């Protein structure tokens, strides 16, 4: 008891009641005396003694209750202090104008000659108190997120937009190529499985043949050893048919067919045609998705055919991004070189390529017959190109990105589907932006909730590149809330404090029902910034 009191006395609380309590505390010490008396004297003394004991008990109970109450009060005052330190006093000052928010009229008042004649503080204040008018959100949000600078001119912003859009296209081209690599890899392993099960005869031939062709290849291989061993026939087969998971069986016969044709090509040619096939795919698909057909050895020739014939722009454009992006895209550059005329016509290629690349299941063969002979011409260059491209990505990176894409696919499909904006086409946009972002932040990877944060940006801007850039800026703010950051714990503590101070009754109920005061159920609110 004494030690309790000392503890209490050393606490910082300075209350007049302290003295009284000290007196109370002194009493129990005199207890042994009456007990001794009890033995010697009669009932009257016993009674007196018991009374003293009762008195002591009462004091003790009172003391404990008081102590509990004091510690509770002390705790609450700490919590209050903590909460008040979180409030920003600078935001105050809400008059009638600020309460209306940033309306269309106010905006046109502030925005003159293509320039926003206002500082951040004023805009923030308006937005804080009254929000932004729905109609002008697409103009205001870029400022709020720091994408546009306050006071920048129309030209400056346009220039910035273009630069950023170009950057976005580059990134998009980069990862779409990787995605194609990945898809080929899985397709190959799937075909492997199928052919193992279904067409034993032709498969054996192929397997015997592949190792001979491969020694040069496997070293530089992009993905798993599997993909290195892929013979042309298999690749094209898997690729040409391209409806993974939906129609495996109807195609089971094809590998055999292809292999036999494949075997007809001169021995030394096979690995080369494989290379051609792959790089051909990248070209075509980066530029425009005229993917290799069911043929055994779709070649650069074929790619040129489709590029030159149907999508000159795209070829040019692939040349464009080749220059700026890394080695792997470099492979397409050579193609472009050989297709000559088209180089340099950049245009909107990646935008359009993006449109197609996203459509995972859409790579159907265009039925162009290839000319096996052509393959030989490109062989050497492509060998180089391929090794360059392959060496730039490790297996781990590819696996990691593949896993992330898989998750994004799962989430994009169920993101804000009740909102009419998200039809198939716009979901593809959402997916592309998300993948681009994750491609640049692979160490963290995709975390559920990112799609939810991105969706409103896309709805408001309806512009991929801009949404991407604004999302990057938004994520700088929100990143700490995600599991790899530390902010969430602070939110929980603050939430707990708020409930405790503002609604003690609710707090008590929460404590009684299996203690929910950790507030984990608020996780979604904080992570998605109260979106859902």
């Amino acid at each position, binding site marked *: 008891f004494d030690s309790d009191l000392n503890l209490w006395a050393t606490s910082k609380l300075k209350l007049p009641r302290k003295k009284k309590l000290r007196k109370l505390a002194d009493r129990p010490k005199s207890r042994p005396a009456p007990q001794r008396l009890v033995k010697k004297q009669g009932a009257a003394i016993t*009674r007196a003694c018991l009374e003293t004991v*009762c008195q002591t008990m009462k004091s003790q109970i009172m003391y404990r209750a008081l102590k509990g109450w004091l510690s509770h009060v002390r705790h609450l005052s700490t919590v209050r202090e903590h909460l008040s330190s979180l409030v920003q006093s600078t935001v105050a000052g809400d008059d009638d104008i600020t309460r209306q928010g940033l309306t269309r009229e106010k905006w046109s008042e502030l925005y003159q000659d293509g320039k926003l004649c206002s500082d951040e503080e004023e805009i923030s204040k308006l937005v804080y108190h009254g929000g932004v008018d729905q109609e002008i959100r697409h103009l205001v949000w870029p400022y709020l997120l720091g994408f546009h600078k306050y006071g920048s001119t129309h030209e400056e912003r346009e220039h910035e937009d273009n630069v950023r859009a170009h950057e976005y296209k580059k990134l998009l081209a980069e990862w779409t190529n990787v995605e194609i690599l990945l898809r080929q890899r899985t397709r190959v392993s799937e075909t492997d499985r199928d052919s193992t099960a279904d067409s034993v005869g032709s498969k054996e031939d192929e397997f015997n043949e592949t190792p001979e062709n491969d020694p040069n290849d496997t070293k530089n291989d992009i993905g798993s050893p599997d993909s290195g061993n892929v013979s042309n026939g298999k690749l094209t087969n898997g690729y040409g048919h391209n409806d993974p998971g939906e129609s495996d069986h109807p195609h089971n016969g094809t590998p055999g067919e292809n292999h036999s044709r494949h075997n007809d090509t001169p021995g030394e040619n096979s690995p080369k045609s494989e290379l051609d096939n792959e790089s051909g795919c990248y070209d075509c698909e980066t530029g425009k998705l005229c993917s290799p057909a069911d043929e055994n050895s779709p070649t650069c020739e074929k790619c040129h055919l489709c590029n030159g014939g149907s999508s000159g722009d795209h070829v040019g454009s692939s040349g464009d991004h080749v220059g700026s992006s890394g080695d792997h895209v470099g492979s397409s550059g050579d193609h472009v070189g050989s297709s000559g005329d088209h180089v340099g016509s950049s245009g909107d290629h990646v935008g359009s390529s993006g449109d197609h690349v996203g459509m995972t299941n859409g790579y159907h063969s265009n039925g162009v017959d290839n000319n096996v002979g052509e393959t030989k011409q490109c062989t050497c260059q492509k060998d180089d190109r391929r090794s360059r491209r392959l060496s730039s990505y490790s297996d781990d990176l590819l696996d990691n990105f593949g896993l992330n894409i898989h*998750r994004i696919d799962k*989430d994009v499909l169920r993101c804000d*589907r009740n909102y009419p904006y998200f039809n198939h086409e716009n979901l593809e946009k959402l997916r592309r932006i998300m993948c681009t972002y994750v491609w640049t932040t692979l160490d963290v990877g995709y975390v*559920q*909730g990112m799609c939810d944060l991105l969706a409103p940006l896309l709805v408001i801007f309806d512009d991929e590149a801009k949404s991407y850039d604004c999302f990057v800026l938004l994520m700088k703010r929100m990143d700490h809330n995600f599991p790899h950051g530390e902010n969430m714990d602070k939110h929980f503590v603050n939430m707990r404090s708020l409930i405790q101070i503002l609604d003690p009754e609710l707090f008590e109920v929460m404590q009684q029902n*299996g203690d929910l005061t950790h507030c*984990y159920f608020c996780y979604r609110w904080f*992570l998605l910034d109260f979106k859902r």
Partner: protein
Amino acid sequence: MDQNQNCHKNNEFLFKVLIIGDVAVGKSSIMKRFAENVFDRKYGSTIGVDFKTKKLKLGGKAVKLQIWDTAGHERFRSITSAFYRGAHGIVLVYDVTRMETFTNIPKWLQELDLQDYNCTVKILFGNKSDLSSERDVPRETAFKYADSNNMFLFETSAKTGNSVNEAFEHLVSRMLVAFHEAESTATKPILSGDLSTCILSEQEKIIAGSGCSC
């Protein structure tokens, strides 16, 4: 012990049930189907945890289920694993159209063991059983696995509602059995609290005595 005391109040059992499993296997849909009997194809991904309650009567006993739906993404594991403790029942969900979600079940079980939870009742749900043409996990394999791990398996469909209620009822009946078993083997609770509390209670007895003699 504490758990048992907590879950039986006012003649109503309160059981905490946790739904776990891979991303997009249909955990939230199962919860929604069971708690509200609806299916929403457009349900978004679960962030952190979500919960619903459902009351039901089974064998004349009123049971209130507090169902916690968790995020499948392993990044949220730090949050979701906080709920393993104190759960009376665990629903493990996989997707019959995706083999990898089934092969991950042992990982989930391992995860549970790591958390040192008290729960003994686990049940396996093979969800999306309505998509029979896309089935990837053979029925026999799954049932064999469930048998060898001493779990009951129900192939459910949150979309059609098939077997969802039966599976939960089965889970509840097993939780009730587990509760009664625990109750019959339970020893008397040992007085807890610090020494002063005990002293206080001794003195209270004295007070009671003195009250009589007064």
